[in-house]
């Protein structure tokens, strides 16, 4: 039997991705592109919210969107309908995006449109409240959408997701009269227990209620990032 040599590594399994994410953040800073990582469970209204967001901000910011899904390009087509630059990423069965995949997507996105500068790039992550929270994508800010029909207990069940988000949008508030067990007060408590720093904005992507508050949060965030 040949002898075996042991090498100590002592490094997190996520360290490699975290390094890549930091590199990507530096690179985006140089290019002047703010990257928003948008996460949620499937069916929470990510694409409809995005469409509203683009409508609210497209006159002042140049916006591009990366749609990540396991399969199909229905979301990228919807976004392209708003006139924003959009590309579809397929994760090949993977339940999340990591910094390496985000970098590839961004390269593709920024190359399109003859390399015209992008102020705001939005990554629509795979619909899932677990895995995307564990992989830093290199984003400048993390946002998530929790919709009313999902219930106000989700921050208790998926604490990591809520703890890494800068902003939580509570979507489908037009459905509150029907889902009367959902308490806005309780959901706030549950979110702030996991993340005291989180900004919480109630919206309805369907009626447009709250979209202006969300758009101004994003507008200020991008402006502050550009000044820094």
């Amino acid at each position, binding site marked *: 039997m040949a002898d*075996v040599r042991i*090498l100590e*590594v*002592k490094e997190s399994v*996520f360290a*490699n991705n975290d390094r890549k994410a930091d590199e990507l953040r530096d690179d985006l800073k140089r290019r002047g592109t703010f990257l928003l990582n948008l996460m949620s469970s499937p069916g929470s209204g990510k694409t409809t919210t995005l469409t509203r967001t683009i409508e609210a901000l497209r006159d002042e910011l140049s916006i591009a969107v990366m749609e990540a899904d396991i399969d199909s390009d229905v979301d990228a087509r919807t976004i392209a309908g708003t006139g924003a630059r959009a590309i579809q990423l397929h994760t090949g069965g993977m339940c*999340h995006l990591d910094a390496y995949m985000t970098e590839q997507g961004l390269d593709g996105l920024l190359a399109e449109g003859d390399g015209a500068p992008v102020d705001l790039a939005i990554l629509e992550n795979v619909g899932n409240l677990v895995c995307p929270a564990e992989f830093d994508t290199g984003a400048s800010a993390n946002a998530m959408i929790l919709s009313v029909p999902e219930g106000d207990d989700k921050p208790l069940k998926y604490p*990591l997701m809520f703890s890494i988000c800068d902003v939580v949008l509570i979507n489908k508030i037009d459905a509150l009269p029907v889902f009367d067990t959902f308490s806005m007060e309780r959901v706030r408590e549950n979110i702030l227990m996991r993340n005291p720093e989180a900004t919480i904005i109630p919206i309805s992507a369907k009626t447009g209620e709250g979209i202006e508050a969300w758009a101004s949060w994003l507008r200020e965030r991008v402006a502050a990032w550009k000044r820094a």
Partner: protein
Amino acid sequence: MHELGIVFHIIRSVEDVARQNNIHRVSSVTLELGEVSGILPDYLADCWRWACDKKDLMRGAELVVEEIPAITRCEACGAAYGTVEHGRICPRCSSDRTYLLQGNETLIKEIATPDEEPV
């Protein structure tokens, strides 16, 4: 399902270490995984075999997982208890002022290589 992504990142890290140390074969990789790290060793093992067989450096490499039990400490009464059994609420004094002492680890501890002369 995130285990496949994690395996890719482990292999990238091992490749970096191998390059720095002029290693051409890896015979095993040892991980320290906390009981509540969210990584399932069984799924990890399935993805491991599939991904390693695609790389000369990793072909045949064994995956060794050392599991670290999850323990929560109560700030109110000082008790330490099993996280998986009792969750966030202290079973002794019912306080919710508790924090995870250990069990969230996701560490690549070490790699083993056949002790060959560097080529």
